[in-house]
């Protein structure tokens, strides 16, 4: 029990942002380092474990304690939960959920499969749903409500409440529509985690590549009744904004803030998907999430800022009303979805104590904001390769776009070349961790650039609606496609950076042992010294890693778990390597294919000290 005791002391000693929070049972459970009760570990999205049994002096002798095959191929994002003595593991489509008994050699207590007779609960066939999943069959994990419910957000957008003890369905509601024929709705899918706040569960939506107008929808956890829905774009009443009270850059957004920024009714198929990792501050009672790209990828047909795509939202979770909005990439021309995780940290910024929100955006800028007011504090590039904008104007909050890399400025049917980052961003959904010991952010990143040619396409409800070609390649001058970096969110500077041959597509975990875990696309589970980045341990798991690390303790022993299962967008671009390995015959095999290193297969690997 010694590690538990130690970690409780450790957590009390640290000035945690939610130390005096509401008496929510879930928040109490989040503070118990023995459990991992939400996808991000806690509401603040720190992905930090107070356990220190595994630490920088002994992590070198880490061993595999046990493994578990999910029985599903294809990309496995997200990670398992541990509630008491039970672990919950989810899979890619068909979105199976397993409950494993940690007291009994991981025996399967129950297994739930939402697909019955080839169909999802919403009535669409699994084949149809797969065919409209952009970028692989991933799911970013289940979540837990203390009334004994495990919630699954299935690929057909069904929200499914399961009895945590038995796996029996409590209620099911299908949020949107994965089928065809509904203008601006068809081909909606679900891949993001369901997010528990108080007695509600909220879900986002995927489908910006299919012309879906996306939204956040909140449901009652006990009945499954819909409470509110906030669209990413459209009339004020659809978006749940108050023209006078909702602010952006500290000023009221005014009437019709979104409608004014779209030609005609283009907002009706405007995208703005929500599928990353979210944050919640119970003291401020604010939910934080980011919205994705406007559709189509051809900017020429939608002149204007396309609000509120590409936007950090702060909302009241009780009624959905927006408190503040900040659009990072107005008039997106590169597919820089703003969906990435929101990390809430109380920290000093420029000498002043702030309730901060830190966000590593796809567009290559890391933003530090005041999460209470929405004030922009820091916006700096976290990959030196980023070139589409010179900087973010701190007065207006707008990026200064470089014409040479503006696909709208270059125009339709023109190939704009050497844009950095590529559409998959300097970082995609793979969440960063906050190391409470060093105050640094541990960030998995991509180091990839692209050529992009927009052209005119038609919208057909339920069909792909993209309208740009994309070719990606390594950033100039490098021989690697990814970096794992430590970031100082006050100074806006990289502290250390470890190059990786491929994009780092796994979520990080920082721990009180002074170490940070992350995974690589070849399949390595790695542990590094959080202060210096020095690699202390690596083990090759059965498949490439795009899942997120988590930690828990059981019977006095600390465990670290990770889902392997290569896929996702990373698996598309990198399977065959991004470029000709012999282009020019000068660079000798620098960018070898991922398929030379790993193959498909969902497997959970759990580590412990011998």
């Amino acid at each position, binding site marked *: 029990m010694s590690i538990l005791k130690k970690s409780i002391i450790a957590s009390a000693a640290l000035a945690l942002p939610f130390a005096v929070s509401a008496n929510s049972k879930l928040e109490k459970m989040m503070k118990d380092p023995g459990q991992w009760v939400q996808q991000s570990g806690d509401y603040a999205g720190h992905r930090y474990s107070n356990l220190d049994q595994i630490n920088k002096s002994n992590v070198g002798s880490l061993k595999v304690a046990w493994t578990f095959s999910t029985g599903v191929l294809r990309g496995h994002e997200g990670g398992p939960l541990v509630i008491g003595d039970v672990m919950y593991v989810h899979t890619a489509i068909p979105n199976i959920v397993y409950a494993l008994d940690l007291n009994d050699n991981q025996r399967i207590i129950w297994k739930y499969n939402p697909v019955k007779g080839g169909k999802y609960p919403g009535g669409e*066939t699994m084949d149809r749903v797969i065919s409209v999943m952009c970028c692989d069959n991933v799911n970013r994990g289940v979540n837990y409500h203390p009334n004994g419910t495990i919630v699954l957000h299935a690929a057909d957008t069904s929200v499914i409440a399961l009895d945590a003890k038995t796996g029996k369905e409590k209620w099911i509601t299908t949020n949107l529509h994965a089928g065809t024929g509904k203008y601006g709705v068809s081909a909606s899918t679900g891949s993001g985690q369901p997010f528990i706040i108080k007695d509600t569960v909220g879900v986002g939506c995927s489908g910006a590549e299919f012309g879906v107008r996306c939204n956040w929808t909140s449901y009652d956890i006990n009945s499954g009744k819909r409470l509110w829905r906030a669209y990413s774009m459209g009339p004020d009443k659809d978006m749940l904004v108050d023209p006078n009270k909702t602010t952006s850059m500290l000023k009221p957004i005014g009437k019709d803030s979104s409608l004014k920024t779209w030609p005609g009714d283009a907002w009706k198929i405007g995208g703005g998907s929500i599928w990353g990792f979210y944050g919640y501050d119970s003291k401020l009672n604010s939910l934080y999430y980011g919205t994705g790209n406007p559709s189509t990828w051809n900017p020429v047909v939608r002149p204007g800022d396309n609000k509120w795509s590409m936007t950090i939202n702060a909302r009241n979770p009780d009624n959905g009303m927006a408190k503040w909005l900040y659009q990072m990439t107005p008039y997106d021309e590169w597919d820089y979805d703003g969906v990435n995780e929101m990390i809430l940290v109380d920290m000093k910024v420029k000498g002043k104590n702030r309730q901060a929100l830190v966000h590593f955006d796809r567009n290559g800028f890391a933003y530090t904001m005041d999460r209470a007011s929405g004030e922009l504090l820091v916006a700096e590039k976290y990959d030196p390769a980023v070139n589409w904008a010179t900087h973010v104007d701190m007065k207006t909050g707008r990026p200064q776009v470089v014409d040479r890399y503006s696909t709208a400025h270059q125009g339709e049917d023109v190939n704009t070349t050497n844009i950095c980052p590529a559409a998959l961003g300097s970082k995609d959904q793979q969440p960063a961790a906050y190391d409470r010991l060093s105050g640094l952010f541990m960030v998995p990143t991509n180091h990839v650039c692209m050529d992009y040619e927009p052209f005119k396409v038609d919208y057909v409800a339920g069909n792909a609606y993209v309208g740009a070609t994309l070719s990606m390649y390594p950033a100039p001058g490098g021989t690697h496609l990814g970096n794992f970096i430590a970031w100082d969110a006050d100074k806006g500077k990289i502290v250390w950076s470890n190059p990786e041959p491929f994009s780092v597509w796994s979520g990080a975990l920082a721990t009180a042992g002074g170490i940070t875990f992350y995974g690589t696309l070849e399949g390595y589970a790695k542990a590094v010294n959080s202060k210096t980045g020095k690699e202390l341990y690596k083990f090759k798991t059965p498949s490439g890693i795009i899942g997120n690390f988590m930690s828990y303790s059981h019977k006095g022993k600390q465990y670290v778990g990770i889902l392997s299962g290569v896929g996702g967008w990373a698996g598309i671009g990198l*399977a065959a390597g991004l470029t*000709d390995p012999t282009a020019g015959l000068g660079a000798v095999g620098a960018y070898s294919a991922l398929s030379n290193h790993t193959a498909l297969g969902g497997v959970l690997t759990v580590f412990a000290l011998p």
Partner: protein
Amino acid sequence: MNFKLNKYALAATLIVSFSAKAIPTPEAVEPAFDEDDNPTYIIKYGKGDRLKADGTPLNLIQIKCKDKAVDMVSEEELEECRADDSLVEMQYGWMDFATYKGWRAYHAECHVCHGPDAMGSTYAPSLMVSLQEGLSYDDFFNVIMNGRGEAEGAQKGNVMPAFGANTNVAPHVEDMYRYVKARAEGKIRRGVRLPKLPKFKEVE
């Protein structure tokens, strides 16, 4: 000579041998056409990409190692070519407009699953390889139009959606096949950067 699109024009190939220092820009010489109307210049020279005087890259469409496209040779052959410059051949040129349209449609829609350059992904097959293994135009057309589920023999969990109603795909199937075929035959290298046909010159 009469250079015209949409006609199988000249089969003759212009081969210019120069030292690495004296590379002509392709605009300086007349293109030759292969059997698919692809205008091409073939220049033998040593290692490394070449840039025009103003820094823009030449339209390098294929690198050949011992007469084979580099992504179709073995490691041993590649080693040999690295050691001996004279075994390396660089082909410059453009795609004809139909292939270009196919390239564009492919990289807007298909590459989301089938990977860049028709190379495949972790879960969708490489169409370049499928064509090399004998996928016919009829089958290519049918699968795109009607899709393919588990019932039609797709691997479990792998589904090809039907694009018959997708006006961004259906009209371009022939062009897409043309592009993938050029890849399968080693006529276009990976990551080729928009080698669109230049302004065409009619010769009496």
